[in-house]
């Protein structure tokens, strides 16, 4: 078939998501129904997920100068879609209790997913900026969705202001790079920037500004301060989304950017990234130690995890791409599970989320499936064998050792050691005696059942991948970035 047709097939998944957005909007205009809004979104996301198989037959392919759809993009699309589906499932149970318009939430989720997908497939600064904004702007609305809660509104504002500032940094950085090289696509930029040494300082400065924006989105030190507040204030399903979809998309982009444009293979810049990674591991883990709120704790722990992951970029060896894929997949699966438990325990919505540790004391005696899943997720986040978190950690350690980055190896080991402390604290809590005055989670309703099934599946996958990781490794191994073999 001709090229246009292939390109159309390649963008089938985003088209399905777009359709979901439009249909949900029309459905809301016709008649408000929480169930149908959630249902339509889920169908759209599922169709997008299935159509990835069709996309695989035409990859790698360039669609307009803005996007390249290769196996790498398809893999991360799959991760993003799965995470979005889980978010919608949790939201179904969570927003049942919200006494307000509930339907627009799914609109926002689908739009944000669209942005994330654009970001992953971008090969040009225009699509990068467009994707990043499309990802972030709906998030403002999602974070402040339960705006009658002061915390939620505050978190939304905080994220909006800081995110806006980060975007302006991004734009300025792009402008500087364009001024120095005259190109906006990553590859052209690299070729042009290598030619003359005169503009080197401008290139470095531009890259630095872009890094500021991206590290903000990834909440790496020193741009991590917003994370715990936003995670705590946002409704639990939104925190799930924030910790998974948003981070995956931005990190996948960062990886592609660094591998496609050798301009980023600058020793000075890589050392800086290494320092950021090192500090993130420590700051994230140390700050998490004294938290009593699970959402804040998971927020800090996500800082540390992205710090570990950044090691792969600093190492810059071929194994890095595979390590990133495996680590992000395991991290997303685990985080979805952990936040999912928080969402379900807080469902249906009734004021502040049940995120304080006390709500989880003795959860095992009330909701054994949730508690056991949570324990598995904690072990996986801590990177204990038998869970997929260990496979991710193994990859990152391998990359760090293979590249001879011993100081980062030390950081990972010490960071994990500290991390164990708070993961175990949560885990032990789950099996203690249940206090009599605890808020009892309601297990009734279709939404709760669906959410529990999702969490149960995630727990099963965590264990299965932990025992037999070969299939995940094979899939990731096949997901190479187009242009670098």
């Amino acid at each position, binding site marked *: 078939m001709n090229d246009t047709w292939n390109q159309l097939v390649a963008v089938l998944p985003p088209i399905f998501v777009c359709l979901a957005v439009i249909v949900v909007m029309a459905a809301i205009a016709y008649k408000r129904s929480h169930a149908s809004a959630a249902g339509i979104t889920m169908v759209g996301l599922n169709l997008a997920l299935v159509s990835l198989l069709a996309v695989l037959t035409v990859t790698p392919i360039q669609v307009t100068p803005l996007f390249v759809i290769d196996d790498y993009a398809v893999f991360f699309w799959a991760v993003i879609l799965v995470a979005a589906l889980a978010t919608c499932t949790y939201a179904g149970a969570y927003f049942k209790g919200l006494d307000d318009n509930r339907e627009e939430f799914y609109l926002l989720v689908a739009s944000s997913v669209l942005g994330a997908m654009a970001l992953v497939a971008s090969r040009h600064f225009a699509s990068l900026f467009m994707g990043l904004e499309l990802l972030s702007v709906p998030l403002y609305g999602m974070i402040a969705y339960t705006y009658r809660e002061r915390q939620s509104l505050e978190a939304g504002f905080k994220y909006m202001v800081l995110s806006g500032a980060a975007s302006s940094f991004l734009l300025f950085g792009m402008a500087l790079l364009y001024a120095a090289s005259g190109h906006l696509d990553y590859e052209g930029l690299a070729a042009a920037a290598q030619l003359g040494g005169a503009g080197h300082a401008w290139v470095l400065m531009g890259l630095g500004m872009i890094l500021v924006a991206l590290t903000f989105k990834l909440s790496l030190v020193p741009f991590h301060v917003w994370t715990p507040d936003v995670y705590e204030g946002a409704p639990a399903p939104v925190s799930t989304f924030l910790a998974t979809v948003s981070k995956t998309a931005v990190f996948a982009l960062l990886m592609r950017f660094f591998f496609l444009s050798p301009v980023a293979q600058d020793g000075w810049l890589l050392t800086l990234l290494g320092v950021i990674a090192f500090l993130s591991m420590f700051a994230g883990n140390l700050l998490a130690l004294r938290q009593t709120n699970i959402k804040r704790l998971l927020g800090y722990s996500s800082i540390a995890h992205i710090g570990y992951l950044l090691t792969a970029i600093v190492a810059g060896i071929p194994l890095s791409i595979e390590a990133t894929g495996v680590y992000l997949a395991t991290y997303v699966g685990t985080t979805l599970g952990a936040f999912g438990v928080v969402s379900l325990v807080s469902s249906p919505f009734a004021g502040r989320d049940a995120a304080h540790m006390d709500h989880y004391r003795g959860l095992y005696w009330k909701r054994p499936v949730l508690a056991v899943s949570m324990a598995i997720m904690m*072990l996986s986040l*801590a*990177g*204990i*064998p*038998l869970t997929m978190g*260990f496979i991710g950690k*193994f990859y990152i*350690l*391998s990359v760090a*050792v*293979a590249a001879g980055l011993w100081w980062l*190896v030390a950081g*990972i*080991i*010490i960071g*994990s*050691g500290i991390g*164990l*402390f708070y993961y*175990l*604290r949560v885990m*032990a809590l789950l*099996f*203690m005696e249940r206090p009599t005055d605890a808020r009892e989670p309601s297990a009734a309703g279709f939404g709760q059942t669906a959410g529990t099934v999702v969490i149960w599946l995630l727990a099963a996958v965590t264990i299965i991948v932990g025992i*037999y*990781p*070969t299939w995940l*490794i*094979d899939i990731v*191994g096949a997901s190479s970035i187009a242009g670098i073999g």
Partner: protein
Amino acid sequence: MLLCWLLFIPFVGGALCWLVGRGNSEGAAPRWIAFATMALVFIPALWLWATGDFSLAGLGGHTPHWQREISVPWIPAFGIDFHLAIDGLSVIMVLLASLLGMLAVACSWSQVRERVGTFHMNLMWTLGGVIGIFLAIDLFLYFFFWELMLIPMYFLIALWGHGEFDRSSHVRAAVKFFIYTQASGLLMLASIIGVVFVHYAQTGTLTFDYNALLNTQLGGAFGMVLMLGFFVAFAVKLPAVPFHGWLADAQANSPSSGAVDLSGILVKTAAYGFLRLALPLFPESSAAFAPIAMALGVISIYYGAVMAFAQTDMKRLISYSSISHMGFVLVGLYAGTLLSLQGVMIQVVASAVSTAALFILAGQLYERMGTRDMRQLGGLFGRLGALPGFALIFVVASLGMPATANFVGEFLILFGAFGAWPWVVVIASGGMILAAVYALYLMHRVYWGTPSGEDTIARMSAREYTIMMTLVVVTLIVGLFPQTVLSVSQTTMTEVSHWFATGLAASSAS
């Protein structure tokens, strides 16, 4: 096939315990299943021990001799196999693990009364992980089991432990135990990956297979760093000073059967790790490191003994005494002669048995008296039936009295090390005097002295009696006929000492 059987039986048995115990949280069925599970491991291991050919056939070269081997590809991308194998050393360790496993089930019979099914699942899975360590010879698989056994052990301490000081001290102890061992384990993982990549750089094949990695040339400063990764992981588990902080807390707070597991088996995985990994993989660096390791061993001997003397809690005293015993093991390991390594083997078995026995006795005493504080006990001899008698036997075993296994172990270690390290041996021998002091102190405070009453407290039940009798028999058999153990481990130990001697020559040449 048999190896898979040994490995999977505990996991399957554990799951069964949980299933059976789910509906009825106080029934005895899980106990029987758990006991049968361990017996099903013990009997084949015994058969392997009896029928195996452990002669020194075809010794030499740098490949170990396995009795049985099984290998299935697991993660081909990294050259990781599901690779199990067994030799004399592993047979002894598996036997020990399953024997103590049976006793742990038996001694928890009347002590654990709630969530019986889950308790036994954790117990079985801990033991499964330990047996996995003894059988795995793929380094990734080894590490997998190394960490795997921690999780159920953590739950045993955190959920069934009795708080020593307040309601949550056992949780703190469990966390401490986990962090110590897990963090040091990661260090080992980094070292394992380091060894694998060095091997990759030298030969071009990416593999985690032990047999292949033995041929890696790991000298110089880099080899030393990697060796230290292994050393720290094992020294934490052993534990040797200064990595011992977790042991006393973990043991004082764990349920009796948990403590038996900890000191009897978990801790012994460290000695196994030294013999299997640290010394053979890094003969040169180990030889160069020997003076420091020996110094740590001697410090552990003294530190453990002195600390044991200062304790008022019986369980803490015993766990410090186990640190002291492990000091001898460290000295024996790094002396590296055939004789001292054989001594290490005996000492490991002996210390496992005697420490486990003392823990079980402490548990039984606690059941009767409601306290383990030695200041509140005294004059119990004659009031508890046979219990103080058994205590006397194991106390003197623990101080290394001839006819007990401990004597043979310590004697062989010191004798084997004397040739190269006379002064270390002289100093270490002094530790045996301190051992006598704390052991007799324990005996004196608890069983002698003025009795607080005349009446007889509950005598030992038939079950308790059988447990103790079994342990006495094992101690005496190993003590009087050490050749039963020595002949089995001889091949392995000869290989290890041979490699160590090569390393010694290489390190003194450079």
